[in-house]
């Protein structure tokens, strides 16, 4: 009951941003995907001439992530940053931490509610839109060659990177250090993790780097939150 109350409160705070992210992704991702599908039919042929060497460029084709991926990636990161600010920075400025923390629940429950709300926010805002766009792109009348499962998974990886950005923002917000020392290290670590993940080329490597980084960030967030002074 208490956890669900906290969760509902956190979800309500996330709601405007979730809706905004979902709408923007649906609108722009959908528009550019539709445009890509429109030009699908003439992309494959006509550029190869008999009796000539073929530049490999003409034999490589982008997945739908080329048009939807930037939107998904930046919206996910943006949503992570915004939710991190909303849940952890803003209470610093509005000084509502004492009101929130003086509850008949433990601090870890309060923190767990925030983290759970954010995970739900990501899944239900960007997730369904991505699933919908992928389903649409997988239809044979849209693109001749079906999208691979890997593309679908990669979309979810972008969503997970948004969570990483959120955790980094949360850790920075909870840090009591000065700006010019280690306060922004949470954000910096999240940036390093995102860059590292984007540089990997195997799914195992990607999931490993996300899992390790999320574990590191979560442990630190929990420890900082439980011991922090407000």
């Amino acid at each position: 009951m208490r956890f669900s109350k906290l969760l509902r409160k956190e979800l309500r705070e996330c709601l405007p941003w979730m809706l905004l992210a979902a709408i923007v992704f649906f609108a722009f991702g959908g528009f550019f995907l539709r445009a890509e599908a429109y030009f699908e039919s003439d992309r494959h042929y006509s550029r190869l001439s008999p009796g000539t060497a073929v530049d490999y460029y003409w034999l490589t084709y982008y997945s739908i992530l080329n048009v939807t991926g930037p939107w998904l990636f930046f919206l996910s990161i943006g949503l992570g940053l915004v939710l991190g600010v909303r849940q952890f920075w803003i209470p610093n400025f509005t000084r509502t931490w004492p009101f929130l923390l003086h509850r008949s629940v433990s601090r870890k429950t309060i923190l767990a509610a925030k983290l759970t709300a954010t995970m739900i926010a990501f899944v239900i805002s960007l997730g369904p839109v991505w699933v919908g766009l992928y389903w649409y792109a997988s239809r044979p009348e849209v693109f001749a060659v079906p999208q691979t499962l890997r593309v679908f998974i990669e979309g979810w990886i972008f969503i997970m990177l948004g969570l990483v950005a959120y955790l980094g923002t949360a850790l920075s917000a909870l840090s009591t250090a000065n700006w010019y020392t280690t306060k922004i290290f949470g954000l910096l670590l999240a940036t390093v993790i995102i860059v590292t993940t984007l540089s990997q080329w195997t799914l195992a490597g990607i999931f490993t780097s996300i899992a390790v980084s999320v574990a590191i960030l979560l442990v630190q967030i929990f420890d900082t939150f439980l011991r922090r002074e407000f």
Partner: protein
Amino acid sequence: MNNIVLKTKGLTKYYGGTLAVDHMDLEIPRGCICGFVGRNGAGKTTAIKLMLGLLNPTAGSSRLLGCDSSALTPAIRQRIGYVTEGHRLFRWMNIGGLEKFQRAFFPKQWDDRFFADMIEYFELSKKQKIKHLSNGQRAQVSLALALAPNPELLIMDDPTLGLDAAIRRQFLEGMIELIMRQGRTVLFSSHILGDVERVSDRIVVIDKGVLRANCSLEQFQKAIKKVILSFADSVPDLVNIDGVLHCKRSEKQLELTLVGTDDEKISEWAKSAGAENYNIIKMNLEDQFIEFTAPANDRRLFQWEER
């Protein structure tokens, strides 16, 4: 049931290299209204946050309702109401939403009728959003939220900050409503000594992080006195009466602030010093507090003679 609701022992807090609270030993008995006063930066808010486990002490300990403050269990927190400094609430919620939120944490204790009555009394509506409320209205909501669960111990950090006299009066009346219930204890910090004088039966004074007074209001008020002695000739050089806190000399007058000196001793000394007459000035709590926490005896704030 333990008679002491709050006990601190050697409670110390440093912010960096700055000492905020210095070895505070404090006991608050059950069933009292305790005013927690001190000058700006004395350490009141720090002490309250230490008691509630929002800050970690550098040394010493604090126990609230028998539980260590740094490890207050949810069950103990359920018995404590807390009104935060500045009445910081979730601005996007309305009063009704806040009520539902707060009630979820006090399922068995929450008094719906009491909350509704208080909101009605303060002429508020549950549909009003917190961000649209004035400071005073927010204070009222904050008090209602803290009182509705019927807490055993109510801790308020400067609850009347920024409120006008009328709202303050209402706020205090709400508090009196609470104390009429049995066994409730209130600890509140305030800069407005009139409010403290009005409702408290116990006073705690903290000055530069050090506990200076922890006694009943009556004891405090009885102990601090201001005496003006008039002399025909010059004022005596030696002021050897017990309990001199401050001493102000003019040509033929001597103004003494005394602590713990009874009227008989004052009378005896006045005679022995050769005073023509003496007058014990009636002081309110604010005057007494100012005198009690003023700087050392030989510092002169205003030099009337030179003007």
